[in-house]
């Protein structure tokens, strides 16, 4: 099972490789990827050296080109595919059918992975992407239970990659318009969710803080309460007279205890979320998952997650708490 780690910057790429990633995924410095944040991502020169660093150590680099271009910007995504191919990346991760089609016709030798943003949740949808665009791998949206992941792997349509750890999108990726509804900036079109330029913090007289997104109140925090980033899905709202995290609380996905089942199911790669996270996160999370995967390979019988691994991962989790999320029925 390959460990696929996030690299939002050249130092993060080196850190991920040094701490045990089998592959890193990166994005260009534009809206062609779903983490188009200021100060993040790779110039062409950055990527060239990053690829050289990874390849010299027998590791892979994937480029995420997983946003959806509008017609007038389609050429920019074509150019990005060309650039990735010319640089010699090991795979591109795409969601848009037009982009996948372009890549399959112009760079048939370049492996195409279906992004989580492509929202393929059934073997029929996976067959579509395989037959139409010859995808070599698909990343599943974070909506399926472990049993559903296992059944999908049994169908053997394409090799499957799943999310193992990181911030949890509560909605089906690629089909969430909450950010777009509030700010006009969407993950699908602009590669951003609830972008910072729309965020406004206000402090009340008693030290109470309110956070707004494009003037819409997302949450209020007491002075001693930890305050998270105001993505729409993680705010507190009033439903039926009760105020609570009506969609999802700030928490991270952690599938560590499912590792043996994911391996037995034939999942080929585990993805760590977090290109927007710093090097401390990348090093610690990569090292922890490397250790867990290696121990499973060496001593599969009676494998148990080490409590130290779980503590380490929780430290880096949103709100310092983790969940099995959709893999576990009780979460639904």
């Amino acid at each position: 099972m390959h460990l696929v780690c996030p690299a939002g910057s050249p130092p993060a790429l080196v850190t991920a490789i040094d701490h045990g990633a089998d592959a890193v995924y990166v994005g260009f410095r534009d809206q062609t990827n779903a983490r188009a944040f200021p100060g993040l991502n790779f110039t062409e020169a950055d990527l060239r050296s990053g690829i050289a660093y990874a390849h010299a150590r027998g590791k892979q680099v994937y480029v995420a080109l997983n946003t959806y271009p509008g017609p007038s910007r389609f050429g920019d995504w074509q150019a990005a595919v060309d650039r990735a191919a010319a640089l010699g990346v090991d795979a591109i991760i795409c969601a848009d059918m037009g982009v996948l089609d372009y890549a399959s016709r112009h760079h048939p030798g370049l492996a195409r992975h279906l992004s989580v943003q492509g929202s393929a949740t059934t073997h029929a949808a996976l067959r579509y992407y395989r037959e139409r665009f010859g995808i070599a791998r698909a990343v599943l949206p974070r909506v399926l239970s472990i049993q559903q992941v296992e059944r999908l792997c049994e169908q053997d349509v394409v090799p499957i990659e799943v999310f193992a750890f990181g911030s949890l999108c509560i909605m089906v990726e690629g089909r969430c318009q909450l950010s777009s509804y509030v700010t006009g900036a969407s993950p699908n079109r602009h590669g951003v969710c609830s972008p910072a330029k729309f965020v406004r913090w206000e402090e009340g007289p008693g030290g109470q803080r309110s956070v707004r997104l494009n003037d819409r109140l997302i949450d209020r925090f007491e002075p001693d309460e930890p305050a998270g980033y105001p993505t729409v899905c993680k705010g507190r709202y009033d439903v039926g007279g009760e105020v609570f995290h009506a969609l999802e609380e700030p928490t991270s996905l952690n599938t560590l205890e499912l590792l043996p089942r994911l391996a037995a199911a034939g999942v080929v790669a585990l993805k760590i979320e977090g290109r927007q996270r710093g090097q401390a996160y990348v090093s610690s999370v990569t090292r922890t998952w490397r250790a867990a995967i290696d121990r499973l390979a060496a001593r599969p019988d009676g494998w148990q997650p080490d409590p130290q691994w779980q503590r380490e991962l929780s430290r880096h989790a949103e709100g310092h708490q983790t969940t099995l999320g959709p893999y576990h029925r009780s979460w639904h």
Partner: protein
Amino acid sequence: MRLTLGPLQYFWPRERVLAFYREATTWPLDVIYLGETVCSKRRELATRDWIALAHELADTGREVVLCSLALLEAESELASLRRLVDNGRCRVEANDLSAVQLLRERGLRFVGGPSLNVYNHQALRLLCEDGLDRLVLGVEHGQAVIEEFRASGLPLPELEIPVWGRLPLSYSARCFTARALDLAKDDCGFRCIDYPDGLPLASRDGQPFLTVNGIQVQTAGHCDLGPELGELSAAGIALARIYPQAEGTAEIVARFHSAIDTGIAPARHGEENGYWYGTAGMELVEPAQSSMPR
């Protein structure tokens, strides 16, 4: 421009659904879309019932389209989808690529639903090769993308856009209605049935914000492109979609029908139209106000 009734997004008792569609056959609609698009656990009408209802409505001479689920997770849901696709008479609105795949395998023409991701002319061209002959634009699309579709020079299918209703914004594995009622999804008691217009969600300062509808999240306000009908028509939109709501759907249909019939745009009734103008969906853009004073 033709007027269509989008699929019922809420969970109503069987008798209410049947009564609603009996009444709808008396409204000035060109196309009726129906079927369960949100949650497969909603079985007041099972797939075979939706198919029977669709065929019954089609007997009245109207175009009827059967809509597929937006999010499929279980094998049983694929089996229902197969029954829908093989209904033998009505076209299907494909709301995810599982549906597109089953339809193209059978060589059937279909309508692309609003939850398919069609952001550019190339994706649209590929789907047209698959058998798509009408596209219901995704909720975040507006005027600009239609102009760009046209500018691409590729032949376009019929285009449809929602002109009235609470827009579907997202889907999840989690049921937000069950969560709000502190129930497990697997033991939800089908409580969506108590909320014929969904469950309102407000921000902490009391502003209506979203609507919880099972695994779907919708807008709280109604998208209203009534005053924009002239622009829609100029942009080449062939069909205008109205989403059913618990009360007043007949009046809304009548209002839009009369506007299309007379060419006189109706006054604004809804709260939102931002997506049409390329801004945040929750916003209301009044074109008259936004133009420069003379």
